[in-house]
């Protein structure tokens, strides 16, 4: 097997991975960086992010406000010291991207413009029309090509981490194009592989979002934190689930049920704000979990609109006018036209909640280090602790660059403190990973991979959807257990080594199944409702409430040796200045704030 020696190996070349690679290269051009990705960098799913990235720039805004919005939005399950660091570093990183060429939308005077976003008190979302992720990713990719110390391994699929004496010392990957295995020794390994939305059937995610990094860390004993928190985005295009950005509502789009009624006012988000005058944290600009839950309740009341492809509500943008829509939301117009046959200029778009984001991920500290020395993680695949139980829109794009940078700096430091190394043990592990992968060719089973994938997705929607109950979660747990056995009997039809996607998909599905198990086990263990995790059961419906006494804690999912299911533990949440309170939006929030001010005045 070919062997390489690097200082830093980064797995995943999306927003976080690219930012980390640049950070290392800038910290010290002598450090050799391996940037490994199973696709070309610009295919990474960062590309599909639409709305924007939050960073405090306006005079009427402050770090404190961004901090409070984020922590309250996360239902107090955030690491507050990390959030604090995050909001302070966000503007700097956003300006950095601007200097690198990102076409952030502008005000007439030439300064960067910001837009409103759900759950944010003040407009603070930097945006590049509705292609923010696309522009960020391409800017980062194009910027990265000027650093000769970054060696890319495009279309290389990571099979395993290399571990010795409890430290992470590299990865073994497969070159899809050449059909060769490669061992990459590195002093620091950074996982930036994105989320795991593909656990679910209906999601906004690309086909590559299969939770690879999460499963890699999990299999090496690093816990996955808060995996039960899966965000449903309230406005996915009916049928295909493609994302209609929150920016639609930030720009003034409104949601109607079948009676043409703005139903959100019935769910603690009112009173109704006039059409065309969006107000932060009111109505359509409430947080995502609340909006998705409102849809579910409307559906139960029979007030959604029935289409051949399923139930939907209407996202109405028509009052914004053609010129404004084409300037601010060009991609939305294109997507709705192409995939739904609806022109948002003329007619409302049918939308429904769809799985979008995994708040949880690989447990890390505020510097992206996991509990395994040498292993770091950032971006959606990590849980650095800023999203808590519900992520606010436009916090994740900033997360990629802020923690990409922090991780890059941390790894550069570690690389400086270590010498190059190699050992027969690492080679042995690499060979073993190669053998495990190649052994899949010899399985003579009749199971269908696509059936397993479909059943997993279906079962996850039923068990750990917008609302959850013990009963259905148990069913999902059983289903996943049998799928774990069935996947061992998938026979491959083709032994080809070059671009064998059938083989790669099988390994990916293995990763996804592991992550799905962590999600449902974490969920069934959390006997309360918080953020995106809403339960309907418990004695006298006790789990319908937030339970700060028992569950103001992170869930940790550990791999159990010998068992095919994870073990769940709880860990404390870091609270610094912002004590848990009722999470309120709309008029209720304003009343609460007034009361607080009055109290302070006394």
């Amino acid at each position, binding site marked *: 097997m070919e062997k390489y020696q690097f200082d830093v190996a980064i797995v995943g070349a999306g927003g976080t991975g690219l930012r980390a690679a640049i950070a290392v290269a800038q910290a010290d051009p002598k450090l050799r960086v391996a940037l490994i990705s199973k696709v070309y960098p610009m*295919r990474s799913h960062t590309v599909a992010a639409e709305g924007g990235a939050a960073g405090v720039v306006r005079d009427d805004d402050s770090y404190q406000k961004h901090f409070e919005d984020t922590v309250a939005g996360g239902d107090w399950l955030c690491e507050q010291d990390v959030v604090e660091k995050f909001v302070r570093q966000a503007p*700097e990183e956003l*300006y950095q991207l601007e200097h690198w060429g990102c*076409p952030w939308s502008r005000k007439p*005077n030439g300064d960067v413009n910001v837009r409103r976003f759900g759950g944010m008190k003040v407009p603070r979302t930097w945006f590049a029309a509705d292609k923010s992720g696309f522009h960020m990713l391409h800017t980062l990719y*194009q910027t990265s090509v000027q650093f000769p110390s970054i060696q890319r391994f495009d279309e290389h699929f990571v099979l395993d981490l290399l571990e010795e004496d409890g430290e992470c010392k590299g990865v073994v990957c497969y070159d899809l194009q050449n059909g060769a295995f490669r061992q990459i020794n590195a002093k620091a390994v950074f996982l930036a592989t994105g989320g795991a939305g593909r656990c679910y059937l209906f999601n906004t995610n*690309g086909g590559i979002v299969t939770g690879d990094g999460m499963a890699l860390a999990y299999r090496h004993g690093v816990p996955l934190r808060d995996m039960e928190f899966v965000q449903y985005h309230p406005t996915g295009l009916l049928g295909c689930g493609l994302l209609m950005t929150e920016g639609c509502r930030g720009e003034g789009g409104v949601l109607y049920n079948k009676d043409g009624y703005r139903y959100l006012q019935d769910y603690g988000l009112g009173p109704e704000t006039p059409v065309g005058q969006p107000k932060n944290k009111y109505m359509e600009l409430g947080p995502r979990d609340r909006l998705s839950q409102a849809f579910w309740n409307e559906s139960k009341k029979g007030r959604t609109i029935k289409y051949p492809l399923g139930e939907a509500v209407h996202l109405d943008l028509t009052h914004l006018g053609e010129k404004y829509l084409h300037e601010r939301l060009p991609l939305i117009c294109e997507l709705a036209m192409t995939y739904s046959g609806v022109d948002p200029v003329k007619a409302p778009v049918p939308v429904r909640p769809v799985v979008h984001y995994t708040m949880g991920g690989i447990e890390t500290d505020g510097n992206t280090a996991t509990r395994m020395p040498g292993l770091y993680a950032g971006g959606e695949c990590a849980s650095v602790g800023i999203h808590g139980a519900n992520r606010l829109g436009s916090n994740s794009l900033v997360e990629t660059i802020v923690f990409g940078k922090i991780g890059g700096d941390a790894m550069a430091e570690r690389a400086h403190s270590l010498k190059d190394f190699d050992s027969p043990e690492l080679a042995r592990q690499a060979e073993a990973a190669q053998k495990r992968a190649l052994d899949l060719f010899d399985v003579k089973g009749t199971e269908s991979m696509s059936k397993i994938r479909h059943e997993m997705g279906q079962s996850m929607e039923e068990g750990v959807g917008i609302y959850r109950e013990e009963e259905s979660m148990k069913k999902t747990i059983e289903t996943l257990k049998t799928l774990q056995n069935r996947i061992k009997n998938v026979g491959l*039809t083709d032994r080809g080594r070059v671009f064998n996607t059938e083989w790669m998909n099988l390994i990916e599905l293995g990763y996804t199944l592991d992550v799905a198990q962590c999600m449902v086990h974490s969920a069934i263990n959390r006997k309360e409702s918080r953020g995106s995790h809403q339960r309907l059961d418990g004695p006298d419906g006790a789990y319908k409430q937030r339970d700060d006494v028992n569950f103001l804690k992170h869930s940790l999912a550990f791999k159990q040796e010998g068992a095919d299911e994870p073990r769940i533990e709880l860990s404390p949440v870091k609270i610094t200045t912002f004590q848990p309170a009722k999470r309120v939006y709309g008029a209720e929030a304003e009343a609460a704030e007034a009361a607080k001010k009055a109290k302070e005045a006394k």
Partner: protein
Amino acid sequence: MEATQKTMKVTVLRYRPEQDKEPWEQTFDVPYHKDTSVLEALFYIKDNFEPSLSFRWSCRMAVCGSCGMMVNGVPHLACKTFLRDYEGKDMKIEPLANFPIERDLVVDLSDLIEKIERIKPYIIPDAKNANMPLNKNFKQTPMQMEAYLQFAQCINCGCCYAACPQYKLNPKFIGPAALTLLYRYNVDNRDAGAKLRAPFLNSEEGAWSCTFVGYCSEVCPKHVDPSSAIQLGKKMSATDYVFNMIKPEH
């Protein structure tokens, strides 16, 4: 299956490098409805008939640029092309033209990637702005942004290279997407690197290999209009040429 569902004969070009001497065709009957994309047709084939069929895909929403391929001889994104538009016809899906075929519908894009990276696709600020503090942005009015924004929409799918006869005839040609990106950075008011990019633009394999066929702009799924960027690049290069004649640099 619904009674209204129709089927289409879809022929896919197959090539397995370890078994086949050259590509061959395989035909499938694919059921479809009004929203079925070519990509979904390929999913159907992979799930139900041929798990070994390989193709690149990811986002399903025409922004990641993975699924460029030839549909009835024309470069398209599979996820943005629909069977309904080929009703009454057969469909033939082939890998992107003008690139070596790696396997089935997967081509070797390394030449495209190398060219994109060759032309220095990043902001090269002038000395005055090189160390701008990170609490300040460059001034860029909406109009200054408009000058390049359209050309920054490229998703690197490779459709324009598959459409370009000049690239077919002379693979040294830097080609539509990379030249568009070059122009995009040259006209960005934050950038001062035009001089460093000029050798690529001015060369025979740069803008001057283009004969303005215009097919790249026709097939571009993001309406980037590369042929326009190249003509504007030619104007830029010609100006540079004339100035260089009047006042040579060395």
